[in-house]
Each structure stands twice: as structure tokens, then as C-alpha cells.
């Protein structure tokens, strides 16, 4: 399992004091804590702990040579930034159960390293792909998924639609991201 983005183990220790928002509402307006903000916060320090496989990631264990690393939510000492630590913990402490669960999946989900490496090998045609390269491409791709989903939600809000995201929202989101220049496009333009 990728040690960097390991989820918080002791989530139960962080029960919310009071739900600040209704069920099902994700506070996207919160400037401190949009998913992209949280991903760019300084890295939490890692405490190398016991081998604790988190449920659904177990199938990744075999491919990982690294030790599993526990990231204890109580030990979130965001490097050199006690201010941000305090803010983050304050926000996290107010999460509803649903928000916390969603946050867990936000932190833990990742593209499988082996699959990503396979894909990169095929695309590049190289015989090996360096570890940093897999890390960077995986992280970039994950954040791009975030761009898509968040933009799709914005589209749904504009259209006053609810429920699961539908392909039409994703297509519109993708179109907007292209306009923003967030989608890599090779300079050779297709004529048709």
C-alpha cells in the first residue's frame, strides 16, 4: 500500500462534536477544505507502525515492498505548520459521519501502482518506469479525477439536478476543463 496517502486509522477517535451541515451535504464552499486544498497541505509526518492492512486495499499488499505505514490521525503534525494542523483538526472534528467516511475514501483511494506502471510502460515503450514517475502520474491523474468530479457537481448545481453524477455532467465538466487548459493536448491539431 502506498505509504504516503495512507488513511487515518483511528477515525473512531475523532467523533464529530456536532454535525454542522445536513446529511448528504458536502461543504464545498469551505475555503480551507476543498479536496484539492487538502491534498496540497503540507505532508503529515509518518509514524512507521505495525502492518495494518486496511480492508479494501488488501489486494495491493503483495505488490508493495514497503512496510505498511500507519498514519494516526492524532499524530497529524503537518510539517512546520502548526497553524494549518490546528485548522485541519478543527475542521475534521466537526465532520459528520458521512463526511468523515467520504473523506476517508478521498484519502485512501488511489490508482493501483501496478496497473499504472503497466500502462506507463505501454505508452512510453520504455523497458522500465521509475518509481517517482509512477508516483507523479498517479497523483496527477487522481487530482484530475477530482477536477472532473468537482466540476461535474458544479454543473449539476447549475442545472439544479441531484443524485449520482451522470455521463452528461462529466462530458460538460470535461469540456470546461479543456477550456481552462487543464487537459493536456498535443499541439498537433486534428483537422477532423
Amino acid at each position, binding site marked *: 500500500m502506498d505509504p504516503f496517502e495512507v488513511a487515518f486509522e483511528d477515525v473512531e477517535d475523532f467523533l464529530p462534536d456536532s454535525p454542522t451541515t445536513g446529511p448528504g451535504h458536502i461543504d464545498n464552499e469551505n475555503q480551507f477544505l476543498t479536496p484539492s486544498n487538502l491534498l496540497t497541505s503540507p505532508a503529515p509526518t509518518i509514524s512507521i507502525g505495525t502492518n495494518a492492512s486496511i480492508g479494501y486495499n488488501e489486494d495491493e499488499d503483495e505488490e508493495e515492498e514497503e512496510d505498511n505505514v500507519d498514519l494516526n490521525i492524532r499524530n497529524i503534525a503537518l510539517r512546520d505548520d502548526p497553524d494549518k494542523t490546528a485548522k485541519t483538526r478543527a475542521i475534521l472534528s466537526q465532520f459528520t459521519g458521512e463526511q468523515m467516511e467520504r473523506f*476517508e475514501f478521498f484519502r485512501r483511494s488511489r490508482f493501483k501502482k501496478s496497473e499504472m506502471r503497466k500502462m506507463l510502460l505501454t505508452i512510453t515503450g520504455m523497458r522500465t518506469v521509475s518509481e517517482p514517475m509512477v508516483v507523479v502520474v498517479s497523483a496527477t491523474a487522481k*487530482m484530475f*479525477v477530482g477536477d472532473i468530479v468537482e466540476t461535474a457537481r458544479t454543473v449539476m448545481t447549475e442545472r439544479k439536478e441531484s443524485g449520482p453524477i451522470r455521463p452528461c455532467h462529466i462530458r460538460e465538466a470535461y469540456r470546461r476543463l479543456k477550456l481552462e487548459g487543464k487537459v493536456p493536448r498535443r499541439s498537433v491539431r486534428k483537422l477532423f
Partner: protein
Amino acid sequence: MNANSGGPSSKSKAGSLQPSETSFKRKRGVFQKELQHMMYGFGDDPNPLPESVALVEDIIVEYVTDLVHKAQDTGSKRGKLSVEDFLYLIRKDTPKLNRCTELLSMNEELKQARKVFESDEEKLRKVFEADEES
């Protein structure tokens, strides 16, 4: 509602990318499970629609493909493809750039920590063996 985005593969079935783009034939739903969790984490329903997940997977594969090709375009000037080529491409996207540099430095730290650990282990083993001989 305009259902055709005009993008090259957003409407194509998985695996039917243009031959000029890449010869990458992939099975359907390689990233499906992880993508479901990811989409939920970023704001979708706890159970995202399968067609939405499939579409996002198509988009991501194309995204990574184009990203790599662009990186190769810049990298080829120097020779091998390197991580720096990717970082250069995302330089304008600050959150992505910050995240990547953060992960890279953590990667490095972990490598060093493991090296120290392994060399300590080795020392310990030698002490053991010396003890047993005496």
C-alpha cells in the same frame, strides 16, 4: 442537450482509441474499483453510476496518454524521459505541482529511512554472528 462533446474518445467504447494515438489495448474497467472510491471521495454518490465511472476511466487513460506524449515531446530534447518533464507540464497547475513535489520528497525520505533500517539490520546480524562464533 448536446450529447457529443466533440472530444476524440469521450464517447468511444473502452479500448477503441485511435490507432495513431496509442496501441494500448486495455480491458474494460481496469481502474473501475478504485475509481468508484475516488469519485465518491471527491463528491459523487457512494455508488457512482457505472457508465460515469467507465467514462471517467476513458478520460483518465486519454489524459495520462496525452500527458506522457507531451512529456516525451519535451523530454526527447534532452534524451530520456524523466520526472522533471512531468513536473514541467503541470507547472501551471499549482495544487498538482505542490502535491507532486510533496510526494516526491516523502518518497525520498522513505527511501533514506529504509536504507538506514537495512544497514542497521545488517550491523545487528553481524554482531549476532560474531557472538555465536565466540
